[in-house]
Structure formats: C-alpha cells, structure tokens
C-alpha cells in the first residue's frame, strides 16, 4: 500500500507522542503562534468585508455536495472536455499507479538524454500525497520544487508542516542556513553574504530557480479546481513561480485528486472568492492560472491530466466522512486550531496536518493506520466555523473516533483498559441507583485523600491530569441526595420505568 506510506509517514509516532516532542520546541511554538495568529486575523478581516460571506460558504458547500454525489458523471465530462481540447487524461487508482504514469511520461519526453530527465514542480498536495518526488528520484529523475516554502522544505531534507505554508515551522535564520548549506548541491548556490532579510532570501531563491525555469522541459503541477464543462484546470498561487512552470516547459503533467472537479467554469466565481480570503487572508490571490488543453504557439505543447483516486472512492462511500472531500486546501482550519497552533504539522505524521488532516488522512489510508488522529482535537469547533466550504470537522472527528474504537474491538481478543473503563462507566451511568451508590463511595474516598477540598496527585490514567491540576473533591452530598433530603417527592421523581429498563 504505497499510497498510505506517504499520506501517513512511515515510522511516524502516534499523535500524542509526536505532539510531546513538538511542544518541547519553544522556537517552533513561537514561529507557529506568530504565523497562524497573523493569518487568522487577516482572514477574519477580509471575510468580514464580504456581506454575502455566509451565502458564499453555503453555495460552495452545496456545489461540493452536488459534485461529490455525481462525481463519476462530472469526471467523465471532464475527461471528454480535456481530450477535446488536446489534452490526454490518465486514471490512477492509487499512488503507485500515478507515479508510474508520471514517470513514464517524463521519460518519454527526455529521449535518451539523461540531462533532460528533470522536472520543475508547482506546489501540489496531490504529488506530496503520492510521494512523487521520491518515485521520480528512484527512476533517476530530479524534481525541483519551485514554491519558495516547498523549496525550503526540499533543500532542508524536511517534511512540509502546513498545507499552505509548508515551511511555517522555520524561522528566517534557519532558512538562511539551509540556503547557504544546500543551494549549491541543487544548482546555483546562495550568495556568500546572504543575510536573513526576507528580501535577500527571496532574491537568492529567485536566482536559484530562474535557471531551472529556463532549462526544464517538463513541469508537474497539481490542480486547485477543474471545470468539467470546459476542461479548464485552475492553479492559484502567490509567487508567480507556478505560472513559470505552467507556461515555459514543453510538457505539463497535472496530478489531480478526483474530488477537485467542479461542474462548470462558472463555479470558479464562488471558489476564487472563498479560497484566497480563507487561506492567505487576501482579497484575491496574486496569480490565477487557467488552461484548457493545449493551444498552438502558447504554453506547453503537451498536456497530461492524471486523475488520482488513492482512497477517495472509499471515502466517498462514507456518508458522514465524505464531506472531507469538499476540502479546497485553504488551511483556514489549521490556522484557527488550538491544537495545531501548539504542535505544528509534523506531529500529525501525515502530508495532511491539522483538523482537516485529522479527518482526511484516516479516511484515505484506513482508520487503523491513523487511529490517533481523530482524537487529536478538543472538539472546540473553531475549524468548522472557519471552513469556507462548511465541512463539519467535529462531526467527522467523532464519527471516525467511533470507527477507531470499533476497529480496535475487531482486532483485539481482549478489550482495552479504556474500553473496560467505558463499560464500567456505562453501567454506572445506566442506572440512577448505581450512580447514587458510586457518588456515596466517591464522597467517602474523597474525604480520605482530599485536602481543603482539593485532590492532588491521582493514580493510574489520571496521573497525567493531576500532574498539573488539582481536582475538586466529589461533594459530600450529591445533588440528587440533597433533593431527596430536602424536597418532597413528586410524581415524576420516581423514574421507575426507566429504572427497570436500565
């Protein structure tokens, strides 16, 4: 299952463990807080500018719902339109197949000249997801990331930690070090006197990348959207480096998750308003590139579209979980998530981090391969409020938690400690008599361990709670006991029918 190997990073620890490591890194936390805080505030301000923001969200959500319900139909329309416009459509059921297709296409363009076996890349989550760069490297093809943040990640031998800002975890002095150390290995070296001023760093990247743009014969991109009626593909970006890749090379290969299709070109109207405001907090993104097949004398002469499934059809089959496929990768949910803000993206151990990753990743790879992710949330709901396409992330999280628990029940001979505790709690909470008995016991026990009504260190699973927090002692008299003692019974007080059933 090579697809899963890259959606979920091999050997990545479960979330709680990875989070502990991340939390210990104070510089990381400071970088994250500053970066997410800035984007969060900008997003709120520009979203508030649009009077019809909520209507736009609702429209986007309904377009996505409709498209996902009739995905097969719209994909076939897309294939027809792209083919008619002179493009070639390929279907890939998983990562391995997609990588095979792209590798073969690149090799076919290079002829026997190994020098030509290189590609420039537009920032793309889909190619991250399938591990394309590594697959190309195995075939002797060098892939150069041209997005500034992806370049930092690639040169640093690192993993992306944010959907939109893959190098969000890096400070500018770290970036300077990476550029000085690594740029020469990949092409034009960084200037000797490189400072950590953003302008200087950007200039170094510009010079380094320019030779790649001018030399490359093949570019690989993802897609933000694809219009089924016209066969038009859309990529939005901030730097213009993507546009260089989309226009200069002779061959353009686009790898696109099948959920990215939209029924019509006119639908872009809605999404091109929502995406930049939600992602970078800009009213409009600086570069929007649209292309339809190939055009004589303008842009790439060959266009290939690889339609990637890689777990999406299985996700589509889940009525609650499928809404995660509506994601437009804006990363608004990451920027408002209090858990992401403190742990960063690497803790999620997946190419899709944050709240959307916590619901998308387990669905793409199977819950048993990412069982800790649906629990990496307090269910505070900030992500749902921020999502421009109204994905009810908390709803999907608890839905997947149930699946994780069921998967564990299936796989184990003996129940987990947690399952036993939940069963015991269920038995107590299933009957007011048993609950009252436990309350009396708890009150007695508390009197033994509490000091000034507070309990300090606790044993067992509660040790991690009591390490930093006191616990109030259970009351000497529960409310139900107080009520019985002080209030005359009424007809409704008996609860006898429920009691018999419980």
């Amino acid at each position, binding site marked *: 299952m090579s697809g899963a190997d890259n959606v979920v990073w091999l050997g990545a620890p479960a979330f709680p463990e990875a989070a502990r490591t991340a939390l210990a890194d104070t510089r990381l936390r400071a970088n994250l807080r500053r970066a997410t805080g800035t984007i969060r505030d900008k997003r709120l301000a520009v979203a508030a500018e649009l009077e019809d923001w909520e209507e736009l969200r609702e429209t986007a959500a309904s377009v996505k719902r409709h498209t996902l319900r009739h995905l097969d139909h719209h994909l076939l329309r897309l294939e027809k339109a792209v083919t008619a416009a002179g493009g070639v459509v390929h279907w890939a059921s998983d990562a391995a197949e997609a990588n095979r297709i792209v590798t073969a296409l690149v090799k076919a363009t290079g002829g026997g000249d190994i020098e030509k076996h290189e590609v420039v890349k537009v920032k793309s989550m889909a190619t991250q997801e399938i591990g394309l760069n590594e697959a190309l490297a195995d075939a002797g093809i060098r892939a150069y990331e041209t997005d500034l943040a992806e370049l930092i990640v690639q040169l640093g031998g690192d993993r992306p930690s944010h959907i939109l800002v893959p190098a969000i975890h890096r400070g500018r002095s770290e970036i300077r070090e990476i550029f000085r150390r690594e740029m020469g290995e990949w092409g034009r070296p960084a200037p000797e006197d490189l400072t950590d001023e953003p302008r200087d760093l950007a200039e170094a990247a510009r010079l380094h990348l320019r030779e790649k743009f001018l030399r490359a014969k093949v570019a690989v991109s993802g897609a933000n959207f694809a219009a089924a009626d016209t066969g038009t593909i859309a990529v939005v970006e901030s730097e213009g480096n993507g546009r260089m890749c989309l226009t200069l090379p002779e061959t353009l290969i686009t790898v696109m998750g099948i959920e990215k299709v939209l029924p019509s070109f006119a639908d872009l109207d809605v999404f091109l308003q929502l995406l930049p405001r939600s992602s970078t907090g800009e009213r409009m993104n600086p570069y929007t590139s649209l292309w339809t097949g190939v055009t004589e004398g303008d842009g790439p002469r060959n266009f290939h579209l690889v339609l990637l499934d890689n777990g999406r059809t299985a996700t589509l089959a889940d009525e609650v979980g499928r809404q995660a496929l509506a994601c437009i990768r804006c990363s608004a949910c990451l920027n408002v998530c209090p858990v992401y803000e403190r742990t960063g993206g690497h803790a999620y151990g997946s190419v899709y981090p944050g709240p959307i990753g916590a619901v998308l990743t387990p669905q793409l790879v199977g819950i048993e391969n990412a069982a800790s992710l649906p629990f990496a949330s*307090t269910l505070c709901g900030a992500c749902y409020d921020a999502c421009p396409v109204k994905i009810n992330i908390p709803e999907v999280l608890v839905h997947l938690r149930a699946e994780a628990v069921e998967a564990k029940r299936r796989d184990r001979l003996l129940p987990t400690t*947690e399952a036993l505790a*939940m069963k015991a709690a269920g038995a107590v909470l299933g*009957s007011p008599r048993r*609950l009252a008995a436990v309350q009396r016991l708890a009150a007695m026990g508390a009197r033994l361990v509490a000091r000034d009504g507070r309990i300090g260190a606790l044993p067992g699973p509660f040790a991690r709670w009591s390490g930093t927090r006191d616990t109030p002692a259970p009351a000497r008299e529960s*409310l139900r006991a107080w009520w019985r003692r002080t209030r005359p*019974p009424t007809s409704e007080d008996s*609860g006898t029918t429920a009691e018999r059933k419980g």
Partner: protein
Amino acid sequence: MRIALFITCFNDTMFPRTGRAVTELLERLGHTVEFPQGQTCCGQMHFNTGYRPETLPMVRRFAEVFAGYDAVVAPSGSCAGMVRDHHRVVAAQYGDAALAEAVEHVVPTVYELSELLVDVLGVTDVGACFPHRVTYHPTCHSLRMLRVGDRPLRLLRAVKGIDLVELPAAESCCGFGGTFALKNADVSNAMLADKMRHVQNTGAEFLSAGDNSCLTHIGGGLSRLRTGVGTMHLAEILASTEGDLR
C-alpha cells in the same frame, strides 16, 4: 413554568451547589423546578470518545425521564449540546422508531441555562448581586455548538455590584476536551497554561463559565499554581443576592 432540572452526572457528583443555585434562581423567578430522580447522564463522554453503542441506554433514559416538561434546563453547554446535536444521531443509528420519536419530542425542550433565562423566560436582570471582579470564559460548546452568543454576558452585566472584565482570547479553547485531557495531556497542558495566563492578566477574583467541566480544568490549574483566583459557575453568580452578603 414547569421546568425539569437536568443536572448532568458531573455536576451532580462534583458540584451540587450549581444545581442548588439553578433551583434557587428559577424559583426566585417564580417557576416550578423538578428533579426527575431517574436521570443520569447525557452520554457525551462515551459518544465523544467513540463508544457510540454504549451511549444508547443514556439517550433512551434521557428521552424517557425528561418527556413532558415545559422546559428542561442544563447548567452545562456541552451536555445541552450533546443532547441537542447528537441524541438524534444515536437514536437513528442504534435505536428504534419509537426512540427516534421520543428524542424528537424532548430535544426542542432542552436549554442551556442562559438560553432558558434569556430566550424562554425573557429575563436578563435576574435580581442578582455579586460585588466582585469577574471574568467570563465562554466555553467552546456553548459558543459554537449552542451559539449562546452574548446571553451569559448580558445576564452578568445586569448583576448588581459586579465588576465584569473581558477575558483576552476568550474564545480560545481551554484544552479540556473531555478525554482529550488524558489522551493528549501535553497539548492540553499547553492550552491550559495560555488560558490561565489570560485569566490572571485580568486581575479577576473569579473566573466564571457555563460549564463546570471547563472550570474544573482551568480552576484545577489555577489552584495548583496557588493563584488565588476562584472559579464559579454562572448559575451561582446569578443566584447570589444581597441577602447572601449579610
């Protein structure tokens, strides 16, 4: 109005004074409060931790015990949210048609305390007096599941003598999240640390909220650090009167 008190298992066991405060408050406003003894728990812990089938008996019990009241009040945003958002889901997934109907019947009568007071009973000034510096944490489920908005603050602003101060980053989660605090203890602690810092910066004597679970988390941290900041459920502030001062 004949109002049933759904105290929630957590308040029942740990914070009976909150339930007594709700009772006093509503009776002071001229309403009849009843405590159905058959009640237990909304099932939130089981549901949110993934033990969904185990939630069914609690959903069934709730629908049965709380049927037929004018209103059911819960001094907990997250438990009220559980009933309102998820009981239908459980009934549909594991129950029968009769249960689904019973749930459908009871859910619209369930209110969180500030909703009941402002929307149903139409009061914002409940005649309370609490001459202390207080800051308010809105709690995620009240804020985003129930959308109680500024109802608690409107109630608090009307309290005589109160010095209500704004909590910085009030809408950030405190990091409790039920079993999250155990499963992801380190992240939970990091979130708690920030929340406590904000609370302390207000100089408040009391941190208030509509959920004792969040208050247990934040208050437990404040207590461990010996900050001297107390926690108090919204209901207890609203139940306080000038008589309590003497």
